[in-house]
């Protein structure tokens, strides 16, 4: 078990040469991953999360800042000296070795005694239920089995830190959910610090103690799943986390102090925040709909209804914006209906339109 500390970590590829600025892949990451925590690095592809993971692993050099593991600076430690295990997206099983050899390889390289290797391999193999394939070559295994072998290989090492690079992305949907649950159990049993890279917010939410949301090489937010979901620190986090996406629009202050979506009758009371323009967000599942009386205008018009069974997503045209509301069951409205959007139960998220940062304010009703 170990604590991982990142202090203004940055990564630059290439050199600044002939006036061409070097490309910053990752910059100024600072956070602490507590010992025993399961932390996800979440973000769209290209946001630098894998680079961060590789830097923690030592597979890539840190261009600026430093990484501490248990208080010790690891910048010039080779990956194998950092006491960590890595589960790769493509599993990276050695095709020329049997499953047994794959699991044992890292132990052999560390000169673990032979009998100890045997115990550990069979331990981890039984934990992941792959004892029967120990003699096979990776080529003969299914995707799910390969995944398990990769996990077993990491576990057998008994490292202080587990690093996962989108380990579930190559599995089909059903297997992915199942493995996800197993991963969670496994983490609870082993209790080792885990860093998990994913672009799937669901995975991040279900598995993590803390989530690091990144975009374009920058840290957007570091917090618990609750904080990430309910108190997104930036507009990016707000829009990236949550499904369906949060409804976000620019609202203008009217004379009476309320804020309105231009061109509509939809208004919202944000209290005194001192801004004329503000970005406002509502989660679709926190809003409600009411079909208005015939003859009245309402806030907008229903464009489409997408039933999902237990809930239905209703898309509403609101002025020149789209607004999504998730209603229970199959809902009561049909395309063309004029509706009012009721946000009384909804948490209102406000963001500064220039800095995209969250504007703290009390709960508004």
């Amino acid at each position, binding site marked *: 078990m170990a604590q991982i500390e990142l202090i203004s970590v940055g990564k630059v590829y290439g050199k600044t040469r002939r006036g061409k600025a070097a490309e910053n892949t990752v910059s100024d990451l600072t956070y602490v991953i507590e010992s025993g925590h399961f932390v996800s690095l979440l973000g769209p592809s290209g946001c630098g999360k894998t680079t961060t993971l590789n830097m923690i692993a030592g597979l890539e050099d840190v261009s600026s800042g430093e990484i501490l593991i248990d208080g010790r600076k690891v910048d010039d430690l080779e990956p*194998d000296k950092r006491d960590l295990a890595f589960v790769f997206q493509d599993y990276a099983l050695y095709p020329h070795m049997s499953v047994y050899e794959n699991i044992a390889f890292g132990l052999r390289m560390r000169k673990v005694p032979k009998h100890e290797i045997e115990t550990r391999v069979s331990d981890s193999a039984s934990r992941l239920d792959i004892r029967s394939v120990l003699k096979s070559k990776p080529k003969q295994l299914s995707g799910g089995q390969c995944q398990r072998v990769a996990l077993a290989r990491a576990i057998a090492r008994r490292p202080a830190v587990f690093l996962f690079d989108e380990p579930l992305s190559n599995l089909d949907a059903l297997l992915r959910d199942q493995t996800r649950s197993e991963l969670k159990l496994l983490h609870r049993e082993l209790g080792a610090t885990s860093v998990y890279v994913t672009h799937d917010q669901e995975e991040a939410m279900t598995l993590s103690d803390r989530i690091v949301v990144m975009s374009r090489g920058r840290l957007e937010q570091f917090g618990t799943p609750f904080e990430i979901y309910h108190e997104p620190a930036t507009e990016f986090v707000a829009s990236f986390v949550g499904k369906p996406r949060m409804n976000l629009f620019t609202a203008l202050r009217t004379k009476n102090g309320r804020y309105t979506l231009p061109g509509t009758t939809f208004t919202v009371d944000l209290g005194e925040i001192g801004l004329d323009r503000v970005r406002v967000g509502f989660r679709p599942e926190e809003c409600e709909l009411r079909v208005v009386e015939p003859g009245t205008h309402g806030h907008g018009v229903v464009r489409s209804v997408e039933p999902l069974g237990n809930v239905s997503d209703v898309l509403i045209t609101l002025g020149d914006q789209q607004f999504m509301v998730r209603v229970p069951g199959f809902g009561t409205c049909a395309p063309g209906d004029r509706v009012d959007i009721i946000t009384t139960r909804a948490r209102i998220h406000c963001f500064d339109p220039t800095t995209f940062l969250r504007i703290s304010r009390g709960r508004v009703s």
Partner: protein
Amino acid sequence: MRESWLSRNLRHHLTAWTCGALVIVVMVIFLAPFVWMIAYSVYPSTALQAGVPDLSLTNITLDSYGQLFSDPMFLGPIVNSVIVGLSTTVMCMAAGAACAYAIARFRFRGRQPLLLSMMTVQAIPVIVLAVPLFILLRSVGLYDQLLGLIVTYTAFILPLVIWMLVSFFEEIPPSLERAARIDGCNRLQIMYKIAFPLAAPGMAATAILAFITSWSDFFLAKVLTSNTAVTLPVKTAAFQGLFAMDYTSAATAGVITAIPVLVLTLVAQKWIIRGLTEGAVKG
């Protein structure tokens, strides 16, 4: 309906027959000359040079093989060729695999030009290099030495070896090597524990190609050896001397020279083709 089905069936049969016949013709053209040379090596030349060749099986004799294999002037070149071929292959693979691996894996300036210039080397006519090469080898005492031939062949074959191997190494997923680093391999261990075993089929094919190339060379061996390091092709060509033309021995020597290459090629044909085509597509 039925009629048209029949005619279609018939057409298919006809095509199949024609193609079959063509395949047989092609194979005969490809194999007959070599078979004829084998015949020359086992029949007395008088039997073959008669108006109608006398191919009765009772005429077959392995005398010429026995004769050549008991001739120290012929055994020497065989041994030389084997030593040169094997050593060249080993050196090519050692230096080539290291170089190709670095080109495939490490980013550095001049990587692409390096690979391209390797290809350019293929364009150099050997003839232009013969005299300077001779002077070079003689000045370090490697003229007419097996080692001299070995380093020369290594230099000539290396570009091809590197060119082929780069494509094989590039095929190995980088994540495997990252995994190995996490597992505790240093860079050298990654090479010989992970990369080389994974590229084994390609490396085998490349090695065989290197062996074949050095084994078959005639011109360089002719220029760079005189007596102690003479190789098999030079000896074989010498059966055509001013006072020594002997069709049976020449054919026998030809067969002996060709056999190892043949066996190796047949064993490794799949890999060889793969190695060259992949190099082609990527290079």
